[in-house]
């Protein structure tokens, strides 16, 4: 099973946010999409998870068409999306946020198991189960957001800027956890990041996006080594 994006275009009003994009994400790989602000990274994820409408092209996960149907149905096909900016519900408790991700499966026992797995990954959430999500720190909220997505037992995890607004140390910790998840499960991850260096370091494949088009694609290590990419996107 792989994520196949073919000739995908997405319009934001009069602006073409994604322009004829094609790429493939292999199973069990961690692919990082990097690029400047406004390169179309978030739009790409929002389109794949059914929040935005595509203008043209195809996108599929296995035999599931990602451009048809609503976001809530993609989850049922194994696609979970952590949207930009700590996608948790602040008014609910940590535990409720987690349970939310497993509600659609209507299987209490399985949900309990998944919860245990998530709390093993993020032990700090376990200490705060009964607290409202808005009492958490930024890093904890991001962990909760990822945890909520994992509760749906995804095969494809779409992560939008998990490092946004977090301290460097916390970012490193979260990136490491993302790498661990890929290593220890059969999950495929598409990670969108402004923090290009950090993302490429943990990724298998890197995609550089510029104004809705692919500027470069290849093994993450190669991209890091490429002087042109370094100068334009990695800042040194």
């Amino acid at each position, binding site marked *: 099973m792989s994520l196949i994006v073919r000739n995908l275009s997405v319009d934001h009003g009069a602006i073409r946010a994604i322009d004829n994009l094609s790429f493939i994400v292999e199973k069990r790989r961690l692919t990082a999409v990097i690029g400047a602000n406004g390169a179309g990274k978030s739009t790409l994820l929002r389109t794949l998870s059914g929040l935005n409408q595509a203008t043209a092209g195809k996108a599929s996960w296995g035999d599931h068409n990602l451009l048809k149907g*609503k976001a*809530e149905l993609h989850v049922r096909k194994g696609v979970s999306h952590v949207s930009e900016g700590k*996608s948790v519900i602040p008014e609910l408790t940590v535990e409720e946020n987690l*349970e939310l991700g497993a*509600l*659609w499966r209507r299987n209490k026992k399985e949900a309990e198991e998944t919860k245990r797995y998530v709390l093993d990954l993020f032990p700090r959430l376990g200490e705060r189960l009964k607290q409202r999500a808005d009492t958490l720190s930024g890093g904890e909220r991001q962990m909760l957001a990822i945890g909520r997505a994992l509760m749906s037992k995804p095969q494809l995890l779409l992560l939008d800027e998990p490092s946004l607004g977090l301290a460097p140390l916390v970012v490193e910790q979260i990136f490491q956890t993302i790498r661990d998840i890929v290593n220890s499960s059969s999950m495929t991850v598409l990670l969108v990041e402004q923090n290009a260096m950090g993302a490429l370091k943990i990724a298998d494949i890197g995609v550089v996006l510029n104004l809705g088009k692919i500027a470069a694609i290849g093994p993450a290590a190669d991209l890091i080594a490429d002087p042109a990419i370094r100068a334009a996107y990695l800042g040194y």
Partner: protein
Amino acid sequence: MNQFISSILIGFSQGSIYALMALALVLVFRSTRVVNFAQAGQAMVSTYIGWEVINRTGSYWLAIPIAALGGAILAVIVQNFLMRPLSKRTSEGAIAPVANIIVTLGLLGVLHSGAAIIWGSEEKLLTSPVSTNGFKIGENVYPFSATDVLIIITSVIVMLIFAFIFKKTNLGLALRAAAFQPEISRLAGIRVDRVQTIGWAFSGAAGAVAGVLIAPGSYLNPYSLDILLVFGFVAAVIGGLDSLVGAAVGGIVLGLTLSFTSQYVGTALTFVVPFVVLLVVLLLRPNGLLGGRSSRNA
């Protein structure tokens, strides 16, 4: 029991009806960000359904659940066939910010006149199963009656049912999540459209119970619940418009305020008090007495 305690009890009984109406408004506002001004009309039609039940079976007890069911079905129809298509059609232009308000108003008009055509505009009487005469203690008769006790008990039961559903069940969790963050709920796999419809159904049921409870104390005609809408709205605003607990508290606060002003100042102020309370709350505590964080510009 003296006059003071009697006023408190009356305040609670009337206030719990306002609380139910406020609950109806808040349930819809939370799930779809619409203040449903047609709620008065929907509750009125449901109350007529209750009246028909009493007419045919003679049982007020049966009238409450059937009216509630009718109210729920009506609300689902309104949401599915009117409000949902509407929001897709009116996202642009000068009409966009007011389309919801205008359409619920139009619906109120349709329900008013429709009910008047079906049931006539003359007043109907819903007889309470228990006495509406005030309790008598010694020589004194107090305005607090067995019907008031019935109102309080029924309202409390309805609110407990809601509290249980919202706090203890999966459906409740989905309802709360979809109300606060529809997009994130979608990403978590919640069928938000369906959940919103259930929110509307609950709202319709709450409004219907409010209507059936208030009708024995006053009369029923196509317009008689409009004032309850105003009271419910004021109560909801006191509670912050998107808090269920706030709606209940707001209803009681308004009920007590009204009962004390009519006891100690005069009944003439009944229609002025809510208006003044509304303005004071909006200007001094714009997020309701319990104080949420959302702004009034929703």
